[in-house]
């Protein structure tokens, strides 16, 4: 049986990769994908705990996360598309509209 720590290390590694991707990559689509990686890393740890504790809340939670991720992707991609229409780029370094 694979011990819990392996799952958690995998989850943490994936999460870190996601964080680094969000911080480093410039392409908005890739940043999005990294956010998804982070969410799924959390899912892994949720499922792992679910099995380990023999409770089923974790599965329910991970379903929730997936739903949120799906919704987030649809909204996020819509934002990216409208950004691209306005600016003709998805390079995040060129998008600093949040500064007054």
């Amino acid at each position, binding site marked *: 049986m694979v011990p819990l720590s392996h799952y958690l290390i995998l989850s943490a590694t994936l999460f870190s990769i996601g*964080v680094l991707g*969000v*911080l480093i990559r410039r392409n908005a689509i890739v*940043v999005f994908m990294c956010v998804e990686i982070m969410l799924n890393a959390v899912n892994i740890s949720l499922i792992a705990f679910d099995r380990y504790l023999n409770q089923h809340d974790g599965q329910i939670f991970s379903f929730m996360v997936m739903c949120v991720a799906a919704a987030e992707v649809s909204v996020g991609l819509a934002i990216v598309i409208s950004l691209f229409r306005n600016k003709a780029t998805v390079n*995040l370094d060129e*998008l*600093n*509209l*949040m*500064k007054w």
Partner: protein
Amino acid sequence: MSFVNLAFLVPLFPLIGSIINGFFGLKIGKDRVSWVACTGPVLSFIVTLVLFAGTLFHTAGTPYPEQSLFTWISAGNFHVDFGFQIDPLSLVMMMVVTGVGSIIHIYSIGYMHEEYSYYRYFAYLNLFLFSMLLLVMGNNFLVMFIGWEGVGVCSYFLIGYYFEKKSACDAGVKAFVVNRVGDFAFLLGIFGIFKMFGTIDFTEVMLAAPTTLIYNSEAATLITLALFVGATGKSAQIPLYTWLPDAMEGPTPVSALIHAATMVTAGVYMVVRCSALFNLAPLTMMIIALVGGGTALFAATIGCTQWDIKRVLAYSTVSQIGYMFLACGVGAYTAAIFHLVTHAFFKACLFLGSGSVIHGMHHEQDIRKMGGLKDHFPITYVTFLVSTIAIAGIFPFSGFFSKDEILYHALMDGNVIYWGMGISGAFITAFYMFRLVFLTFHGPSNVDPHVHPHESPKVMTLPLIILAFLALTGGLLGIPLIHGWHILHNWLEPVLAFDLETALHASERMLAEHGHHTSFAEVLHKAQHTSHNIWLEITLMVFSVGVALAGIATAWFFYIKRPELPGKLVKGQWGFNLVENKYYVDELYDETIVKPIVKGSDMLWKQADVRGVDGAVNGVAWVISFLSKIASSFQSGFVRNYALIMVVGFIFLMIVSQMEF
């Protein structure tokens, strides 16, 4: 309903007039403005007469009625009602204020008819009347003080009525600031009274005075001295008289109403109102008599050298108020009020007469450019002459009675120095007033050929005739010699009655409680043994009429018989230059008081305000903006920066949470 409940109407009518004219005056037109402005004072006068009639039936020995409108201030044991006092003294003042005030309002219709801001003038004039009535009617020091300040403000407005003229604005500011000095002392006096008595109600204070203040104690002297300094400011006495001659920049009816008949006598009224306090402070009384007599003489000498018709009258006013204070100083309060009343008549008439001349001469005020005007101004001339004789003190004109009463009391209750100041002032008064008459109305004409003098319209001459009649007959209020015929004396007796014997015994008791055994028997003895000497009084009367006639004769000799003589006599005389330049008092004040204050204020402005206060405010703003700049550098607008900060912060928190403290 008691008649006294009508009292609030007296100040209310002018207030309404002032509000209507002030807010709607420009819209309703000059005719309606005149109606509104003159109806208020006349109605007030009628109500005053009703109150007077009611007071005639007052039961002797009972307190005089007061009308309390509402409780104004109630804080701890400090309690002030907004109330009016209707007693013989305030009634005399109310009749003078509303009576002479109404006449001057009517006169103003003619004098001011060419003015554009006609409505503004009448709004101020009505407001003045309202304040003046508060001053004389208030039943406590605070209401009086409101009126006191109100008349000061209105005086400022009206002196600066021609605000396009720099000199008028300066004169207004000067009057206001000099008055402030006096008002400050007056306030200190009120504080002192509250401290000693625990109340500022006139009736209560005057009743409690003999048993609260010790005769000739520091408290009595300081309080009365502070009150008197307040009076010198408002009533233009040495050392605070300098504003009154400058106040002649205002329209002439204003000079007549405010700067001759009513406002400037407020100080006298206040001293008489507080006579119970002043009676306990012999030192203050001596100072008052000296200041009053000194001012009477001092201002009269300056009056001899002035060429502006209104300035001569202004110095004459200062001098005459000096007589009133001289009377107060020797304890002859009735004589002071008597002279106040007759002075209001003849001086208002003189000012209005000079206004009539100025009006007819198209705003020429220099008497060197007048002369021989009596044919052009027949009515003005006669009324002016009547008032001049009255002020000179010739029998049987009103000034004779009031001035002689003052001189008699100055000698009997005071001493020969007071009398000497008074009688020499009387000589000079007769001289400079007739100098004015001769230079203006007699002799060869020096009128500018382009000016065509003309008599004033009826609306201006009628007030002159009324006032001249009053100046002629006003003396009947106080017929001397015959016991019981002095109407004013009998009328004011209940207000001014003061039992010196009881007060002195009370003071002795209070001193004894503190372990001091002083006897005031000597003071009492002296006070009780000043008898009424009819023959001395008659002698003094004859003498003072002689002095007045001598003054007139001197004026006649110098300005009719030998008009070239005065110029030769005074040429190059340092004494004359000194007097002509008003003893350089203005210059002295300028150098010793005004300039240092201006310099100090300039320093405060440039150092304390610009550098200190502004520097501190701007410094705070600069520091905040500097800190904000640092904070704002975190807001780059790049989402990933924010994410990085979040991650770093999260890691930091994790590390901190794992640390062992």
